[in-house]
C-alpha cells in the first residue's frame, strides 16, 4: 500500500488524489415536472406532512428473477421493522398504498425523460421494460421501486475529455422518512410515486471538485428542458467514491451540490484509513482466516456497574453482552475520518441492523472515556478470558437485539481484515458519513409483471427531437460568441426563454444583449420588487418584443410592460401609452419645467438633469431617454 497520509481538505492537491487513485461517479435523481404521478393519477409535487390515516407493513426478502436473494434485502429482513406509512388522502391513493395495481406509465413523464436522454447524447432503448427494484427499508410500501432503463451510452464534454453517461432510468420517487427508533420506522408518503429520472455517470471524476462541477453541468442539462422540478429536494445526488484498493461506496441522497466535495473527500479518507487498518491487522497476523472472536452474556458480571446506560439496562432487565475481538487492542480507536474512529463503523451496524438506536449503543475497552471503571473492565476481561492484546465490545438490549448486535459486531470486525465492505452510506451534516445499508446488487431486480413492455417508436423520438432545446455546451459557446453579459449565460441556458432567445435574434433581429438582459435580468429585478415572475409566459414576452420592434416601446418601456403584463395576466397593446410626437414631447417638457420652477432645488446647477428625470418619469415607456436628453440639453 502506498505510503500516504491524508492532509486537511484545503491542502489536498490534484496530485494527492491521483496518488490514492480517487475515482468518483454520480447518480443524479431529478424529479420531472408533471401534473400527475408516474403510475397513478395522484397530483405530483404537493407536499404536506398532514395525514389522515396510517398503515402498517412488514417487508420480507424475495427471490430475484435469476433466483437469488439480495444481500441488502436479507439485511433489512434481519432488522424486523414495523413500518408505518402516513397517508394523506389528497396526495395518495390506493396505488401508493399497494392496494391497487399500477396504471399505465405517465406518457408526459416518459416524454420528458426521453428528451433528457437525447440531451445527454444517449441511445434510447427500443422497448421499455419496467422492473421492480427491491427496497426493503420500507421507503416504498410495495417493497420495490418501479423503474425502467430508457437510455444508454451517452456522453457530455468536460474540460478536454468526456464524461460517460452510463445509463438513465425513469422511476417513481420514494417516501420521506419521519423517524426511525428501535423497531419502528415512520414514513410520510406525499413524495411517493412522483416521476423522476436517474442519470448515472461513469467513474470519470478525479477530484472532489470535479464531482461537484459535473453534477452542476448535469443538473443544468436537464433544467434546460424546463420540464424538471426545481427547489429543495427536487434533485438529489448519490455519489460513488472509491480509492485504489478500496470499494465503490455509494453516499446516498446528497441534497446540495456544494456539499459534494467535502463528502467525497471524507469518504476517500475513510476508505484509505480502512485499508491502512487492514495493513495493521495483517501485520498483527490477523487475516480473515485467522480472525477470532467470541461473545458472552456478562449481565451478572456488570450488575453493579455505575455507568448509566448499563445501569439503566440492568434496571430494565435487559441483557448485557460482551464481544472479544482477539488481537484488536487499540484498533477501535483507529481514525477513519476526522474525529471519527473505527468504533463508529461498528456502532452504526449495531444501530441499523440490531435496531439499538439509542446512542451510545456500544462501549469498548479501547475507549478512555467515562464508562466502566478500569477495575470493572479487568473483571470482565478475566471472566471472558480476554488478554491485553484484545478489545472488548459491550452492547446492551433485549435478548434478540443483542444477539443480532453481537453477530454484527463480529461481522464488521472481520470485514476489517478484508478491506472496505460494500455499503451505501448516508451523508451527514459535518461532511462525514454513516452506514446506511449493505450495497445492493443486481439481484434485487425483478421484472414488473403488472405492466407490459412499452415500445418506444422512432416517430415518438423524432417528435421529441423537434422540441428539444440546444445542448447547453453548444448554446453556451454561442452565447459567449454573441457577447451577452456573462452573468446571463448560464441562466439563459436553463431558462424557459432559451428557445425564445433564439427566435428573437433570428426572427425579430433583436440585439442579443438586450434580449438576454430582458429575459434574464428583468425577471430578477421584478422578483425583488415582489412580482410573481412565474406568470411571465413565452407568448407574453414575444408580444412585448414585437411591440418594441414596432417602435411602440422603449427599452425601459419593456420593463414596465412586463410589470403590467404580470398584473393583467396578459400583454395588451392597449396597455401601452399612445406614441408621443415631437410636438407633444415639447409640451410635456415645458409642463415639467413649470413644475420644477415651483420647487426649491438643492442644487440649481443640476436643473437640466432634474428636468430630464422628471420628464422621463412621464414618457419612459414611449420615448428613448436619448431623444428627451437632446431636446432638453440642445434647447438653449
Amino acid at each position, binding site marked *: 500500500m502506498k505510503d500516504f497520509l491524508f492532509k486537511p481538505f484545503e491542502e489536498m492537491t490534484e496530485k494527492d488524489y491521483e496518488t490514492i487513485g480517487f475515482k468518483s461517479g454520480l447518480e443524479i435523481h431529478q424529479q420531472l415536472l408533471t401534473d400527475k404521478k408516474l403510475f397513478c393519477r395522484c397530483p405530483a409535487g404537493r407536499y404536506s406532512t398532514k395525514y*389522515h*390515516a*396510517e*398503515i*402498517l*407493513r*412488514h*417487508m*420480507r*426478502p*424475495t*427471490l*430475484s*428473477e*435469476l*433466483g437469488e*436473494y439480495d444481500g441488502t*434485502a436479507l439485511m433489512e429482513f434481519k432488522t424486523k421493522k414495523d413500518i408505518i406509512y402516513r*397517508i394523506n388522502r389528497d396526495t395518495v391513493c*390506493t396505488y401508493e*398504498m*399497494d*392496494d*391497487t*395495481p399500477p396504471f399505465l406509465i405517465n406518457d408526459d413523464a416518459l416524454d420528458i425523460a426521453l428528451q433528457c436522454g437525447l440531451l445527454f447524447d444517449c*441511445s434510447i*432503448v*427500443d*422497448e*421499455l*421494460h419496467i*422492473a*421492480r*427494484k*427491491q*427496497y*426493503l427499508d420500507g421507503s416504498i*410500501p*410495495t*417493497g*420495490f421501486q418501479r*423503474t*425502467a*432503463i430508457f437510455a*444508454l*451510452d451517452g456522453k457530455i464534454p468536460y474540460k478536454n475529455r468526456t464524461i460517460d453517461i452510463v*445509463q438513465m*432510468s425513469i422511476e417513481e420517487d420514494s417516501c420521506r422518512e419521519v423517524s426511525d427508533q428501535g423497531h419502528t420506522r415512520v414514513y410520510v408518503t406525499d413524495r411517493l410515486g412522483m416521476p423522476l429520472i436517474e442519470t448515472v455517470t461513469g467513474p470519470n471524476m478525479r477530484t472532489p471538485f470535479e464531482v461537484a462541477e459535473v453534477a452542476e453541468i448535469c443538473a443544468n442539462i436537464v433544467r434546460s428542458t424546463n420540464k424538471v422540478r426545481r427547489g429543495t429536494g427536487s434533485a438529489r445526488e448519490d455519489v460513488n467514491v472509491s480509492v485504489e484498493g478500496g470499494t465503490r461506496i455509494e453516499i446516498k441522497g446528497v441534497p446540495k451540490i456544494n456539499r459534494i466535495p467535502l463528502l467525497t473527500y471524507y469518504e476517500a479518507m475513510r476508505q484509505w484509513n480502512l485499508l491502512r487498518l487492514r495493513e495493521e491487522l495483517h501485520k498483527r497476523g490477523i487475516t480473515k482466516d485467522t480472525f477470532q472472536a467470541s461473545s458472552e452474556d456478562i449481565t451478572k458480571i456488570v450488575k453493579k456497574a455505575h455507568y448509566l446506560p448499563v445501569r439503566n439496562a440492568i434496571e430494565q432487565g435487559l441483557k448485557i453482552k460482551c464481544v472479544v475481538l482477539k488481537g484488536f487492542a487499540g484498533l477501535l480507536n483507529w481514525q477513519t475520518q476526522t474525529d471519527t474512529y473505527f468504533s463508529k463503523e461498528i456502532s452504526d451496524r449495531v444501530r441499523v441492523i440490531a435496531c439499538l438506536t439509542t446512542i451510545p449503543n456500544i462501549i469498548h475497552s479501547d475507549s478512555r472515556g467515562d464508562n466502566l471503571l478500569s477495575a470493572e473492565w479487568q473483571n470482565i476481561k478475566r471472566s471472558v478470558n480476554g488478554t491485553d492484546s484484545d478489545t472488548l465490545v459491550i452492547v446492551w438490549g433485549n435478548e434478540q437485539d443483542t444477539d443480532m448486535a453481537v453477530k454484527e459486531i463480529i461481522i464488521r470486525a472481520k470485514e476489517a481484515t478484508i478491506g472496505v465492505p460494500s455499503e451505501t452510506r448516508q451523508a451527514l451534516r459535518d461532511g462525514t458519513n454513516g452506514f446506511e445499508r449493505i450495497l445492493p*446488487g*443486481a*439481484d*434485487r*431486480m*425483478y*421484472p414488473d*409483471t403488472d405492466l*407490459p*413492455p412499452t*415500445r418506444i417508436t422512432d416517430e415518438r423520438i423524432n417528435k421529441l427531437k423537434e422540441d428539444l432545446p440546444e445542448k447547453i455546451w453548444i448554446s453556451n459557446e454561442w452565447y459567449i460568441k454573441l457577447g451577452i453579459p456573462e452573468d446571463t449565460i448560464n441562466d439563459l441556458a436553463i431558462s424557459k426563454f432559451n428557445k425564445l432567445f433564439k427566435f428573437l435574434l433570428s426572427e425579430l433581429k433583436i440585439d442579443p444583449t438586450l434580449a438576454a438582459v430582458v429575459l434574464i435580468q428583468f425577471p430578477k429585478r421584478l422578483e425583488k420588487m415582489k412580482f410573481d415572475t412565474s406568470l411571465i409566459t413565452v407568448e407574453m414576452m414575444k408580444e412585448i418584443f414585437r411591440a418594441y420592434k414596432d417602435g411602440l416601446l422603449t427599452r425601459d418601456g419593456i420593463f414596465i410592460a412586463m410589470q403590467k403584463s404580470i398584473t393583467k395576466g396578459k400583454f395588451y397593446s392597449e396597455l401601452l401609452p399612445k406614441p408621443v410626437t415631437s410636438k407633444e414631447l415639447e409640451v410635456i417638457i415645458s409642463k415639467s419645467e413649470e413644475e420644477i420652477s415651483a420647487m426649491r432645488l438643492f442644487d440649481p446647477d443640476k436643473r437640466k438633469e432634474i428636468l430630464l428625470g422628471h420628464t422621463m418619469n412621464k414618457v419612459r415607456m414611449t420615448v428613448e431617454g436619448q431623444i428627451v436628453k437632446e431636446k432638453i440639453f440642445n434647447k438653449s
Partner: protein
Amino acid sequence: MAEDYKGYRGKALSTLKNFGAQVWSDVEIETTKGNYKGIILPRSETADQFHIVIKMPIGYNIGVAAENVTDIKIRGRKEAHYKIPEKDFPRDPSKPNVKLLGTGGTIASRLDYRTGAVIPAFSPGELYGSVPELATFCNLDTEKLYGVFSENMGPEQWVGTAEAIGREIEKGIDGIVIGHGTDTMHHTAAILSFMVQDSPIPIVMVGSQRSSDRPSSDAALNLMHSVKTAADSDIAEVMVCMFGPTSDYYGLLHRGTRVRKMHSSYRSTFRTIGDIPIAKVSREEITPLRQDYKRRRKDRNVTINTAFEEKVSIVYYYPNMMPDIIDSLIDNDYKGIVIAGTGLGHVNKPLYPSLKRAHEKGIAIYMTVQTLWGFVQMYVYDTGRDMMELGVIPAANMLPEVAYMKLCWALGQSNDPQKVKEIMLTPIAGEITEREPSNGYLIYQGGLPEVEEFIAKYVK
C-alpha cells in the same frame, strides 16, 4: 426447440436463430444504434414479435429491436434457477399436524415467462424456506391438488378438494389449510361448506392479494394466520382467513357461506356480509367475535357429499332485461336458475311469461338480492307476490353466489322440486341466518367527520 427460444416469434425468433443465440445465452448484441451486453431472457408470449429481451449486468431488462441487430456474439450462458431455498420442515411431536392442500393462487409463486405473470409453486420445504415462522405453529405437510388460477376452478376441483378433505380427516389430521386464488375463493368456500358436513376440525381457506414474489406481500402473514387457525383454533368450520385491515396486523376468520370478495385489489378485500366474522386471528392468538360456531371434536366423523348439478345459472337482473335471457336457459336444458334481483328481489314484468314457462318445465328458480346485504322479501310489493305465483322461491339472505352453489349441490341430490326446496331453505352452514344483527351492515361513508376520526385513530 421451443424451450431454446421460449416465447419468441416472427422477426425476433428468426434473428435469434440466425445467430444461434438461445434463451439464457450471455451475449453481446451489436445493433445499428449501439451495442448491448446481457443475458437473453425468455419473452412473454403476449408481447410483440419485434424485440429481444436482455437482462443487462446491472439487473435491468430492455427490449432490443430485432431489425436493428447486426451481430450477436455469444459469450456464455446463465440460466435462471428460480428456486426458493428448501429446508426440511422441522417436526415436533408435541405440535399439531396441519395439511396444506394447494389448488393454485399466489400464496407461493414464481415468475412464469409464458405469460409474464406469476405461477404457483410450493412444498413444505419451500414454504419453510420462505416463511420459517410456520414451524412455530405446527408440523406441516402439503399436497398440490391442482395448479389453477381461481377463475378456472370448477366442479372437478371442488369435488376433488372435498374428497381430499375427507381423506385427511379420516387419517387424523388436526387442521386443514387450502391455498386458493382469491377471485373465486368465496365460491369454493361455499361449496365446501355444503360438501363437507360436520367436520371435526378447522378447514381454512387462504390466499393472497399481493403475490409472494413481492416484499410487502400479504401471503406470508395470511399463511401464518391460517396455519395458526388450523393448528390451534377450536372452530370446526369451513372458513376464509384473509387480512382484516390492509395493514400487516391481523386476519379475520369468515364463515364460508357468508364471505365475499369485495374489492378487486385491496388486501382487506374479504368481508362477512350481513353478519360478523367468527374470529380475529394474529400470530399470537385467536380471538372469537361470536360463540355460535361449531367446535372442534376428537372424533373423525365427517360427511362428504359431493353431489353437483352443473346446469345451473346465475342471472344478474338489470332493467330492460329481455325474456330471451331466461328462454335461452330453458332451451338449453338448465335445471336451476338463481336470480340476483333488484331491491327486495324483483325483475320486470316482461320476464314473467318466461319464468312461468321455466317453472312449468320443472326448472328450480330462486331469488336473491343484488344489494348483497338484506333479505329477499317478496310480500312487500305486488311484483314479489306475482313472481312467487310464477314459482320463484325467495332464498332469504343467501348471497347470490352461495345460493348458486347450494342449488348446484341440491339439484345434484334430487330432481324433486319439493326436496330441492327443502334442501335449499334449510340452513346447513350459516348460509341463511334467522336475523341480521345491526352491525352486520357496515359500509361507512368516507368524508363524514366521525368516520374520518375513526380512520385516523385506528390502523387502517
